């Protein structure tokens, strides 16, 4: 470390190297935080988490108890002096039954470029738009079918919300005009997950219970662009193509939009090349356990010079597996909750991970290096051996 500082001083080494080293050290010792935590406020398993894209400060959580809570992460992290930081939800929690959802909240999305608006989907067959300042729903789309997840278009001008529905369709709603504008049909079973491409504004990826992963151009709603096939055989639009041999319940684009990651109940994670519509054939270890019925949220690091590209995959046996995105090696396993973890959120700013699990808890995962800076004496004592019987 000292050598790196000297090298930077002399100028023989680019400045980012030190940052890279620090971050690497942090990532090596990832663990469940003992200093930071959230109050257990949800009455049921936490199904979804969303962090705003602007400052990565406001965290939204949706639970199976149909409640949505808003947490301010920035405010509380300032008080790290306390032995245990607990983050309480804002008073403006969405409890009101008339306005809020009736059943499990399946998805939350922040508006891409502001924290004034967010959308939620639920098993009560609706998608709602919320004003986050007043925490009241602005508009409710009644979609007449279970909404397993939804995604907001990253292009503000589109203003489109794509919803994955239980009736095999993907429905687009325009939140500016408050109407459902078009329907994509092609899946022959429930659609579980949808994602907008960050690169092509008209491209949408979807995955469903039928095991297919499809890419759509929304300008052509009648048929999908590509139905991805894990064997890389046959024509791109063949009806026989399957992405996974079991229902697919998680989808995410890499930040550059060049790759798509999908996870299925066949306990595999697959990386797809979006340009070519082919399986990249990365083998992600055999430890994956994915039994979730609903949508699973994966998290990816926004890789740059300093941060490696990592995938955080929540499993049904209460672990988070960290894989390297491109070579598939298992970087680390994080252990903690007794029941399944449903969603993970990566906070890039200070390298923190948030997870929502079946035990109604939101957990914070941090680097041990950071934790040790605030460590107490008693903690150190607990890490000592005590072999003698006579104590």
């Amino acid at each position: 470390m000292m050598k790196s500082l000297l090298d930077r001083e002399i100028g023989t080494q680019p400045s980012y190297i030190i940052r890279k080293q620090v971050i690497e050290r942090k990532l090596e010792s990832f663990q469940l935080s003992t200093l930071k935590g959230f109050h257990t406020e949800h009455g049921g398993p936490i199904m979804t988490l969303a962090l705003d894209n602007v400052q990565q400060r406001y965290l939204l959580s949706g639970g199976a108890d149909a409640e949505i809570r808003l947490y301010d992460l920035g405010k509380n992290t300032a008080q790290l002096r306390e032995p245990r930081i607990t983050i309480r939800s804002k008073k403006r929690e969405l409890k009101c039954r008339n306005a809020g959802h009736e059943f499990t909240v399946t998805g939350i999305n922040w508006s891409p470029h502001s924290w004034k608006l967010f959308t939620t989907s639920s098993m009560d067959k609706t998608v709602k738009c919320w004003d986050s300042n007043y925490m009241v729903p602005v508009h409710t789309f009644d979609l007449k079918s279970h909404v397993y997840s939804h995604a907001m278009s990253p292009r503000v001008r589109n203003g489109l919300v794509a919803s994955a529905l239980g009736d095999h369709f993907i429905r687009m709603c325009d939140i500016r005009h408050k109407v459902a504008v078009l329907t994509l049909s092609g899946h022959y079973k429930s659609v579980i997950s949808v994602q907008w491409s960050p690169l092509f504004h008209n491209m949408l990826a979807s995955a469903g219970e039928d095991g297919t992963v499809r890419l759509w151009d929304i300008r052509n709603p009648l048929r999908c662009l590509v139905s991805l096939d894990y064997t890389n055989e046959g024509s791109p639009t063949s009806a026989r193509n399957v992405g996974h041999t079991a229902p697919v319940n998680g989808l995410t684009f890499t930040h550059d939009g060049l790759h798509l990651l999908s996870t299925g109940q066949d306990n595999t994670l697959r990386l797809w090349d979006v340009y070519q519509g082919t399986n990249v054939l990365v083998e992600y270890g055999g430890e994956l356990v994915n039994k979730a019925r609903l949508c699973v949220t994966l998290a990816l690091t926004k890789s740059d010079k300093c941060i490696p590209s990592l995938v955080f995959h929540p499993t049904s046996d209460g672990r988070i597996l960290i894989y390297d995105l491109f070579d598939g090696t298992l970087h680390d396993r994080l252990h903690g909750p007794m029941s399944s973890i449903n969603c993970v959120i990566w906070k890039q700013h200070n390298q923190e991970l948030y997870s929502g699990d079946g035990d109604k808890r939101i957990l914070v995962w941090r680097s041990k290096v950071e934790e040790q800076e605030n460590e107490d004496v008693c903690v150190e004592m607990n890490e000592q051996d005590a072999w003698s019987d006579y104590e």
Partner: protein
Amino acid sequence: MAAIEPTAKQKIVKLIPALTRNGDEFLDEIKLKELKLLCRESDENIKTAYDCILTQLNVRSSRVRYSTMHLLDVLFTRSSYFRKLTVVDIPKILELTVGINGKILPQPANFAIKLKALCVGLVKQWHEKFGSTYMQLSLASDYLKDNARIYATDSNIITHSDRIHQMRIEENRAKSARYSRLLRIEAEMQEKNSDIVENLSIMGNSFEILVPKPMEDVLSNIDTSHSDHDDSRPTYKEVSSDANPLASLLRKRKTNTLSSRKIAEAHGLGSVRYELTITLSSHNPVDVTETSDNAIVYENLRASYKLMLKHLGFVSRWLTELMKLDVEDDKKREALMKEAIDLKRALEMAKTKSEELRVNDGVTKITSDSDADSDFEEVVIPEFVQGRTTSDVGSSLARTTQPSVTTRRDNHARSQEPSLHVFQSTKLDIQPCRAPLKNGHLCPRKDMIRCPFHGIIIPRDEHGVPIEHKAPCVEYEIIDDVVSDEEKMNDEEPKHKRLKLQMHQ
């Protein structure tokens, strides 16, 4: 590494199943210590131990899992590395030991219940101790708390270390109890010692008065007087017992040839070549009898003898207690033992002496008279059993009890006479029903009055045809048999009623 590690590993691999096989909550101390020593050596060994423990936890028997959890707790509270390993697998361990996530614990059922309670308790304990370091423990504890209805058990668990602690406390308590007992005996001995010694000295004095010391006697004979033979006749005889100090002393003197010659000369024998015949009589070794002159001495001696017997009882009790006591301060115990043994020897010596003087004759008579309890047990009980008259029993207590016994016996005998008659089985000749059956036979049922199939039993001829005219009369006789003699005296009315009933039927 290759040379040393495999042995340590193999040892651990062998030790852990041996420790956890029996499903006991006490772990074998020696093996456990060995394992702890091995684990202490390196983290690698701890890893091996941990893997072994996990394997044992996976065994499909709640009994094995139960003791494995005890072992796990022992290592968990000791090694930080072991904690790190365990914490990671907490969900899996809870699945195996509490049955979370819908897992079912294996047989035997009683151990499954114990295992569950143990594990819930352990997680709680661990959380209290290490929860600040290991967030996973808090999560597990909270999880069990949240699902308290399913998993929580109120019963307090006892871990291995608790048990060790408890055992140590008990041991200390027992040790202190033993020590206090030793001190008590010591105090008692000190208290009684002076009494015993005093009593012994009194007895010794009495003996001296009654039996002159042989040496003095002999010497006085030599030095002073040439008195007649009667006086010089030895008043002591060699007693076969070596313990008798008089005898041993005499023998000592006899071995001394010089003095024996002197004795011989003093007695006018002139030579030692005479053969002296000393007759030994076992029933009267010391030729002292109770006379009016030494009656007071004898009386005193008797009192002392009684006291001495009591003291002997004390001393032998102390001895047995000291023998049983297992105290760390062994020197003290041994010193006390020695003292007690010396006392006992002295007392026994005094006892034999007084028995030789026949002091005990009177005393035993008195004690047997006063000791009414033993009489009661020995005499009355066999008398009572055998039913003999007890008039010849000397004990007054027996006499007082005797009349009540006899009265009870008499009562019993009297009441037996008539009642025996009641229980004697009188053979009643019950007639069969004999109503004709469909198969040509006659009904073989024997009822007193009424056959459940053919009604009132009436006399019938050999073909089962009723003999009409006799019916009421026979019926009357049957009833007569049933009704007891006492009833007969004032039972005219019911009899008629019964007869009437019969007529109606």
